[in-house]
């Protein structure tokens, strides 16, 4: 990292690094966890990380379109959460399990 003598502000790249870390955590959770709901929450975590990136860039370029994009991401995430949870409810009704590994009949 370059520039660690106390800057008079926060470099943009730190926001981007934070976003990367949160994204990686989201991916990690997606791969590691077995509960469907937790996996879904990790998806939301990933979306939030990306939102942070957009806002950071919006600030850097002094444009508001980055924030507009974040707005739309949030809308879509909400819609997706609604529908996804409905699907999870249906799957649970059919299979009585929340283990993601059990939902594997779509295979060779």
């Amino acid at each position, binding site marked *: 990292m370059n520039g660690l003598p106390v800057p008079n502000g926060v470099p943009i790249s730190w926001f981007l690094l934070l976003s990367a870390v949160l994204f990686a955590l989201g*991916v990690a959770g*997606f*791969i590691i966890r*077995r509960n469907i709901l937790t*996996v879904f929450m990790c998806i939301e975590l990933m979306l939030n990380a990306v939102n942070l990136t957009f806002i950071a860039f919006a600030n850097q370029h002094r444009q508001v379109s980055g924030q507009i994009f974040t707005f739309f991401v949030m809308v879509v995430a909400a819609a997706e959460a609604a529908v996804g949870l409905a699907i999870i409810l249906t799957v649970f009704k059919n299979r009585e399990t929340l283990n*993601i*590994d059990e*939902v*594997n*009949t*779509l*295979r*060779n």
Partner: protein
Amino acid sequence: MTQNLWIIPILPFLGFLVNGIFGRKLPKMIVSLVAVVSVLLSFGWVMKVYLTAGDLAANPVTEHYFTWIRSGAFNVGWDYTVDKLTMIMLMIVTGIGSLIHIYSVGYMEHEGGYYRFFAYLNLFMFFMLNLVLAANYLLLFLGWEGVGLCSYLLVGFYIVKHSATTAGNKAFIVNRIGDFGFSLAMFLIVVNFGTLDFGHVFAAAPGRPTGTLTAIALLLLLGATGKSAQIPLYVWLPDAMEGPTPVSALIHAATMVTAGVYMCTRSAVIFTHAPAAMETVAIIGLVTAAFAATIGLAQNDIKKVYAYSTISQLGYMFLGVGVGAFSAGIWHLMTHAFFKALLFLGAGSVIHACHGEQDMRHMGGLRKYAPITFYTLCCASLAIAGIPPFAGFWSKDAILAASYAHAPWMYWIGTITAGMTAFYVWRAMFMTFFGEYRGHGHPHESPVSMWGPLAVLAALSVVGGFLFNVPKILNSMFPIEEAAEVPWLVYVSVLAGVLGIGLAAYMYVVNLDLPERITKAIGGLYTLVYNKYFIDEVYDATVVHPLVEGSRSVLWRGVDQGFIDGIVNGVGQESKAVGGVLRLMQSGNIRSYATWVVLGSVALVIALGIAGGVSR
């Protein structure tokens, strides 16, 4: 004014199309009418061209129809040309062709596949006429191959008979070996002359090196030995007797087998400038003549006798060409067409009379039952024996005189062969028409449609020799040389003929146990000759069998089944195997899918990074 030469071959071709496509549904009468009329009209047109074309020696008729091949500077057109040589060949082909078509109407009356026979016969006429009319080697070769094809189709006409189909294969395949030589000759011509057109090649030939011309001539000779049944490629002709007798008469006596002689005569310029090749031609012709005559002495099937006789007489023609007497060779071609066609057609009449019997040992005394056949065959046999004033005498004598002038030993062997010729032909005559009938059933004379052509051909065999003096006709192309007259040549050769007839009469009419005693006395030699010197067996063992076995084990099992099928099947197997491995990725487990996605995205980001990042 154009002579529209294309009409000559087109008419039989139309006959072929009509009979080939519709023949199955047409009544026999229409089929035969179409076939015969098309050839007769063709003959009529030939006569018309002859009468209206003026002096063909000075102004040969040439017609160009379209450009067949154009490749760079190399041009081959569909050109016909008629000069005096062509005119002789055209008259022979269409004239004798018409007679044989008429004869076939009677002969094939009770045979199956009637329309097929006439369709093939017409197709043969088309190709033969193309061969004769061609003005360049490629068109000649087209006709050459075409007649070979028709020979195969017609020899194997009785498709259910195994021996017939095998004979058809043999004819075609042995011909192909000759055609290979012809093709190589054509390639050499193209390389050296840049064109296949007769006019251009013959004009440029005298200037070329002898070695090249000898190579071309020898390769052309190879082709000719295949088509005209000379040593070493004669073996197909005796087997080709499996075909119906009119086929033997037309194709294997009068027209197709003469194509080789015609081709060599047409290429006379090349041959005369390659003396080594000419010598080879003469020697091959002479040896074949003698060799085939010896085999003919011992045969019992009447058609086989005439088949070997054909080979022998073709040998004479090649002898004539080889010693430089081109017009004598063509003269013999013409007279041979007359009497050999007559002999075969007569044999067909005899076979018809004996209800299919071909073995002469079961014939005899037929002159009571089939007198017309007898008298016409007498004319033919006298002609082939070289008795004056019949046709064969003039042409054979011209060849023998020329060969004496070239090399006396050739004359003596030729004369001895002439004696043998007379002997075996009259042996056949005596065995068939004299003595007591040794067969079963009641022999009868043939119908008019069959003895009509016999009569015409007999007349031609009598007068055809001195009526058509071919060397005079072809004087402009092959000038007659005034050689020193050796008077006793004629007498010796005629004497040989008479002796042959006399000996045959003695052995087969007067003293009937003599043949048996002689056969027993010379035992082994007789077996050798009777079995055609086992040449077929030798060819079979040295060439045919190894090829077939090699083909079967190496090419078929090894290369085709093992290698090629192995590759194709192997590709299939490999695909299946790879697919089987890739299939495991589809596990249905969401987490593994997610992992793949992450791995992929890492790779993508790295790739993007290496590529320099997104543009900003």
